[in-house]
């Protein structure tokens, strides 16, 4: 049985490179090529391939977005392809998911391919599914998806300094950038791990690791100074949080 492989990459030449390499493989049948995430999701759902070479960085819907949208059934064996993403690489290693670093030569490509083909042939879909689902869960828990018309930007939780509220939006402050999310602070708070993020007032959640200094204000409140110099007020009502913060 020939293995059906799908190529997903937004760059034409990157697809061509994989095509060149796959065409030299007698056991592989090319199932198609997709130039973006949405196309890939549709193609996988329509006619599930055995194997997908999936680019991580793509416009609108990236590799992880594809994984999320496809769900667990059918879940083909995926070989992630990326030029550079430190977090993703760590996650691939942890979850023993196959990946290729751009640029790659035939030797590396074949090594990854052999391994992926073994998994396809072993019909041990559960192991593959478990690994890939764990990878996705890990990814989801470490990121917040900032969605806009058809596209998703992922913000790493560890990169968030603090989160403010503006009407019905939550504003993620990430270094000098900020992202707006249509979500209340309360809803966001429940999704964040309390050991990493703490609600300090009605209008702010702070990344604990960014707190540099705590100053007492004359009326009984506290001022929290972050590493980047941002000053936030810990309201009097939230003073019990001080113990939680381990600062009193």
């Amino acid at each position, binding site marked *: 049985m020939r293995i059906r492989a799908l190529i997903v990459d937004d760059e034409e*030449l990157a697809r061509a490179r994989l095509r*060149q390499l796959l065409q030299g493989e007698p056991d592989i049948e090319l199932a198609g090529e997709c130039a973006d995430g949405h196309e890939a999701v549709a193609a996988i759902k329509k006619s599930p391939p055995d194997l997908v070479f999936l680019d991580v960085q793509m416009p609108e819907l990236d590799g992880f977005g594809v994984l999320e949208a496809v769900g667990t059934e059918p879940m083909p064996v995926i070989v992630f392809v990326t*030029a550079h993403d430190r977090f993703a690489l760590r996650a691939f290693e942890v979850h023993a998911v196959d990946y290729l670093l751009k640029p790659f030569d035939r030797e590396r490509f074949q090594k990854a391919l052999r391994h992926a083909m073994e998994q396809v042939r072993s019909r041990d879909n559960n192991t593959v599914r478990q690994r890939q689902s764990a990878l996705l869960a890990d990814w989801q828990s470490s990121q917040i998806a900032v969605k806009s018309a058809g*596209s998703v930007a992922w913000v790493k939780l560890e990169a968030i300094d603090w989160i403010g509220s503006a009407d019905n939006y939550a504003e993620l402050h990430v270094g000098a950038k900020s992202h707006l999310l249509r979500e209340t602070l309360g809803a966001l708070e429940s999704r964040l791990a309390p050991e990493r993020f703490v609600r300090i007032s009605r209008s702010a959640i702070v990344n604990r690791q960014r707190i540099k200094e705590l100053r007492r204000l004359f009326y009984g409140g506290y001022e929290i100074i972050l590493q980047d110099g941002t000053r936030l007020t810990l309201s009097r009502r939230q003073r019990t949080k001080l113990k939680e913060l381990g600062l009193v």
Partner: protein
Amino acid sequence: MKSIAAGERWFVWHGDIHYSFKRIRNNMTITNLFQRRWARWLMGFGFWTLIGLSFAFQFYISSSQAGLEVSWGQAVGYALGDWYVFAVLSMAAIWLARRFQFEAGHRSRCLAVHLPASALFSLAYMALRALVGHWQSQASFADAFHPLLVKTWLFNLLVYWVIVAVSIAFDYSRKYRERELRAAELEKQLAQAKLHALQMQLNPHFLFNTLHSISALIHQDAEAADRTIARLSDLLRAALESAESQEVTLRAELEMLRHYLDIEQIRFGRRLSVTMDIPPETLEAHVPNFILQPLVENAIRHGIEPYAKPGRVELRASRAADNLTLEVRDNGGGLRKDEPAKDGVGLSNTRARLQTLYGKAHGFDLRNAPGEGFQVRLTIPFRKALS
């Protein structure tokens, strides 16, 4: 979770560094203001008093050696009377000296101002001093004026010219220092622009994807692979070369940009189209070195890359009267309505450089383009080579 359009615009990076520079500069102006307002008047007063007192001392010694009865009080009174009058008139002399500085090409005009002015200064001194003398000693104005006219007219002229000379010297040293400071600032900003260009080319995402494209081209079009390697090398070389001139011709700047765009074009293929509308008469205009690259890079990073639809970057140059306008526009999502236009490290540096190079004579405008996308418009004085 439903959310609104959020394609964040400029890649902001260490934006606060820029702000802290700004803060330091503000502190400096405050210090300058302080010096100007208080310390300056105080120092001027102290200076003339010191001269007055030293003349009083000399007057007292020489008078008493000549056997004349002069008290300390009289000596100090006379001498300070002399020099405080000079102090008052020096303001007018400094005012004139600032305006007529004997710059090359204006020497005879300045001489034509300062010669009569010095005579007037001398005359005004004698009149004012006689008035003060009349008040000090009850002698009649004419009695006070006559000896002054005989004895001091030449010395007064000399004082005028010394004041003018010192004032011009001070101004020159101040201007020199300012020029040095500005040159240092420009050099720093150019270095930052180059560093940014280099960072962009060594950005792992750009570099490895480009190398990957080359890897694919080797097997299908060796010539194209060669070209891409050459373009990438051109880019890296330009960014690695040591800083040279602040300004280059638009032609040279566009050539550099072409290397970069060629590579992006190879990577994005049909997803990227670039149009350039550059009238030939603008090609020799001077533009700041490395000015366009961060603008075009931003357009591609934020207006093209995040979208699957075919993207377009338009680059336009135009000349209106004495201004050169450069415009970079994309057809991406633009800024959200509520999203502030933030500068990335490249753009904040661009802004600062334009300010240092052209002061108020430049415009730098970021906004959503009419229709769709985002546009950056840059206006600088139109200058050609050898002007």
